[in-house]
């Protein structure tokens, strides 16, 4: 026993909160879970605030009693002092009739008490338990594993997880990595297959998930206590676009000792399907939509004959699309003054769409190929308990938006058709305040994230998101997160209205929360709970970049060799260099992308075949002129 419930007329106990007092040295603090025992009733609560005061009537009495000298005053007795704790009720037993908390003995909660208090007993036991350990509650020398309900973390009852915390402590990334570890190891088999797709949006954060990290003995003890094996995501696959040269990867994960990062290359069709991403609020009008639909349905990927010009187009790449636009503009110019309409589309609309599409081709060179060759995520063959990381950290914001929009939309399409390869997919997006801001214009990505957060759980599409400032994220996105996690927060963020329900003491604790500790809200928990979690068993971005520094950007020929060597380590570099020597960059890139996409058994042969026969330049000898007529003696000839 550590204390007793106290209630006065001014501060009575209620069904939802009560006060208890303890000895001065009691091992109880903010976030401690306690059990109140009284005959016929047991109440569980979590400490939300703490007070201490003495019998000093006014501060002036202290001055008077010490003759105004706080240092030299002799004070043989310590004033009587109370340690009073305000506690929010977690659960009553019995639940009905719901009554005020009785004046009972207060005990620190044991493992079993924590399970009951947080209603974890309802989903961690039985034939088909759905509990997933997420950390350890620790107070007063006691430790208890905290489980969240998979049905409420990953759907279908509720879903999504949002984590907030100041940057620089690596708490958010570490927590997400740890959560994915526990989910992959403890997600119930009867609920189906699950995978995770993570967008790496800054630096090397998520680029070494397949490499084991350094764990302390304490970390290993925590893993053991949670029943989780500390191991990295060995099957993780990495995707990143090329740089503008089309051969060097736009990623920090390029060290040759690592499993190779796979290029992410999209063509015109992939971009056109998500052209709305490229349009800003002013662009989005019926005319633009109509012309994009026309391009998608009638032109791109098909044979299109323009009856006005009589020309036939086969548009499969940006280059061919540009030729198509050029033909339209030439036609209108030839028609003379006043010709502004082409097949009901105004020339201004056509120019706008051309500019936008051309823009993505230019700004996202490396992601978007001009030649129609595509290398994409393994749609339809996602593997159970696997992580897929798409590195968009080096991409232009417009291209990042395009990547988000297309990948999430494709995930949704496949989950709707039940042909993704897994039944549940966790999508992790960091910097959510950038992609789904509370203020600012309504972008396609924000709408997409809203839709995901509101309807994704029915499909098995689960959003794990993180940001520094929760208050700056769209309310519906964070509001739909069934589970919310909070790391250390700064005072400015804590002063925003969203944190109004937290007591000053909890805010103070959040403002000083050490690394490795979190506060979690989950639908089964009626109050936020503080917990600690071990360091993830994977290499952190910072450590990873030191141990596996990225390759320096190499010349074009060398980069081609490296890309091909990622497919076949036996590739002879000199031969490849000889093959590409003198060939145009576009030809080489096209051949390289085709080889990467097809992953042939004989990489060199396939690359040569794609490269095509070299049309060698031939030196033509200058004509020497007409030979002079033979001289004859006949002067009249």
């Amino acid at each position, binding site marked *: 026993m550590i204390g007793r419930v106290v209630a006065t007329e001014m501060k009575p106990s209620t069904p939802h909160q009560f006060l208890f007092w303890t000895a001065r040295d009691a091992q109880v603090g903010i976030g401690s879970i306690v059990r109140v025992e009284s005959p016929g009733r047991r109440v569980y609560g979590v400490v939300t605030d703490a007070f201490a005061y003495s019998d000093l009537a006014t501060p002036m009495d202290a001055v008077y*009693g010490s003759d105004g000298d706080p240092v030299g005053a002799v004070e043989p007795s*310590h004033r009587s002092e109370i340690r009073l704790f305000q506690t929010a009720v977690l659960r009553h037993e019995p639940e009905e009739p719901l009554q005020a908390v009785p004046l009972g003995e207060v005990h620190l909660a044991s493992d079993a008490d924590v399970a009951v208090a947080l209603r974890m007993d309802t989903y961690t036991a039985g034939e088909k338990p759905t509990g997933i350990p997420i950390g350890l509650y620790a107070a007063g020398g006691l430790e208890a594993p905290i489980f969240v309900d998979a049905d409420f973390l990953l759907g279908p009852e509720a879903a999504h997880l949002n984590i907030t915390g100041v940057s620089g402590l690596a708490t958010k990334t570490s927590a997400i990595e740890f959560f994915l570890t526990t989910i992959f190891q403890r997600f119930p088999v009867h609920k189906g297959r699950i995978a995770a797709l993570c967008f790496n949006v800054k630096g090397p954060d998520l680029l070494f998930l397949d490499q084991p990290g350094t764990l302390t003995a304490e970390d290993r003890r925590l893993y053991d206590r949670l029943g989780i094996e500390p191991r990295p995501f060995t099957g993780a696959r990495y995707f990143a676009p090329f740089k503008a040269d089309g051969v060097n990867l736009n990623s920090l994960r390029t060290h040759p000792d690592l499993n190779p990062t796979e290029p992410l290359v999209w063509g015109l069709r992939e971009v056109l399907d998500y052209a709305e991403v490229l349009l800003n609020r002013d662009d989005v009008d019926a005319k633009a939509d109509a012309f994009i639909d026309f391009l998608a349905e009638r032109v791109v990927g098909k044979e299109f004959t323009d009856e006005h010009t009589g020309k036939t187009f086969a548009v499969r790449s940006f280059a061919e699309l540009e030729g198509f636009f050029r033909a339209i503009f030439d036609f209108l110019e030839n028609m003379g003054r006043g010709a502004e309409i082409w097949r009901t589309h105004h020339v201004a609309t056509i120019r706008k769409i051309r500019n936008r599409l051309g823009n993505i081709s230019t700004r996202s060179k490396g992601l978007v190929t001009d030649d129609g060759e595509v290398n994409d995520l393994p749609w339809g063959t996602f593997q159970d308990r696997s992580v897929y990381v798409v590195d968009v950290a080096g991409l232009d914001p417009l291209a990042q938006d395009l990547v988000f929009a297309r990948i999430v939309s494709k995930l949704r399409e496949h989950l709707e058709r039940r042909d993704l390869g897994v039944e549940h997919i966790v999508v992790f997006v960091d910097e959510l305040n950038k992609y789904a801001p509370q203020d600012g214009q309504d972008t396609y990505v924000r709408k997409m994230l809203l839709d995901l957060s509101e309807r994704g759980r029915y499909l098995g599409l689960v959003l794990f998101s993180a940001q520094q400032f929760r208050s700056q994220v769209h309310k519906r996105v964070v509001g739909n997160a069934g589970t919310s996690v909070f790391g250390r927060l700064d005072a400015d963020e804590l002063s925003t209205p969203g944190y109004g329900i937290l007591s000053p003491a909890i805010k103070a604790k959040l403002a000083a929360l050490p690394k490795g500790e979190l506060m979690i809200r989950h639908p089964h928990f009626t109050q936020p709970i503080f917990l600690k979690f071990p360091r993830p068993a994977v290499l952190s971005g910072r450590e990873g970049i030191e141990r596996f520094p990225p390759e320096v950007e190499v010349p074009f020929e060398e980069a081609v060799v490296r890309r091909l060597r990622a497919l076949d380590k036996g590739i002879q570099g000199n031969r490849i260099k000889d093959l590409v020597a003198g060939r145009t960059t576009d030809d080489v890139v096209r051949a390289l992308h085709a080889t990467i996409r097809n992953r042939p058994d004989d990489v060199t042969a396939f690359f040569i075949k794609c490269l095509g026969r070299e049309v060698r330049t031939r030196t033509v000898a200058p004509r020497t002129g007409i030979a002079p007529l033979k001289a004859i003696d006949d002067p009249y000839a």
Partner: protein
Amino acid sequence: MSSRLLFQRVRKELGRDARVVIATAMPPAVEGRPDDYRLAPSRLIEDDQLEIHAVGGAQACDDPMAFLDGTQRIEVVGYVEATPVVAALVAAAVRLRVGGHFTTVARQQRAVLVGRPDVLESLAGTYTGFDPVPLPAEDVLHPLKSLEGAHRLIDIERSRLERDVGWVFRQTSDAWLVVDGVLADSGVWQDDARAIGVSKSHATLPFGGADLERYLTLPSGHRTSVFEPATWRIAPVRSWGLRLWPHEGHDLFHGLVRVEVAVPAATTAHADLVSRWLLAERAPLSRPDVRWDRLLYGVAAVERHLRAR
């Protein structure tokens, strides 16, 4: 059970007897204890005439120090044939201070029902938890006289409890013990060199005439010569006046206490040392109690403990 509930219960129990008129208040005329104001000239022990001695600065006692006090709660719970029936809860406790923190080491409590002997006899069996204490025959004629008599009996009961808990404490501890009140009325402390009585009451003053003026204008941080009070009943003690706080601007009695120790302990050095200890006991201040100028914090802590239960 709290005293409030205890009194409520006894009223309910007595109310079942049709002869009892339930009451809930004390008649204002007899609130508090009647004091007998008088002068009782004392015999000087230390000096030839009453002198004033500076005791030095406040000095905290480093040894564990205990404090003894008692409380009483008195309520008229009813009347039978115009005679009051008075319920009282008396309690006494010793709290030991070690390292600045208090622990209650001895505590006793007794609930008594005071009334006319024949009334208490006739009510026997109707109430529980209270011990009957009959009023003397001379106190039963006038209801207010009965209340005064009840007060006196309850005072005696409280003093008895204080003696008992002091005795119990002394069986297990030889720590310094500060007793709220006088030592001279109790046979327990006559040879106890580590008992210190601190009397806040000045109903009986130890001097008259010029000595009284000297006594009542004692400067702050000074004591009088040691004397033997004339008021001892069980055994003689040694005593001196001590000014804890300046009286200027307040009242002659402000901050003035009378200290008692057993005869064997009454040396000049001991009087000075004890005085310095008591000066140190001014802090922490025992406000908001109105007697804060004379009420030591340790004694107040005992009172607060008893009243809280």
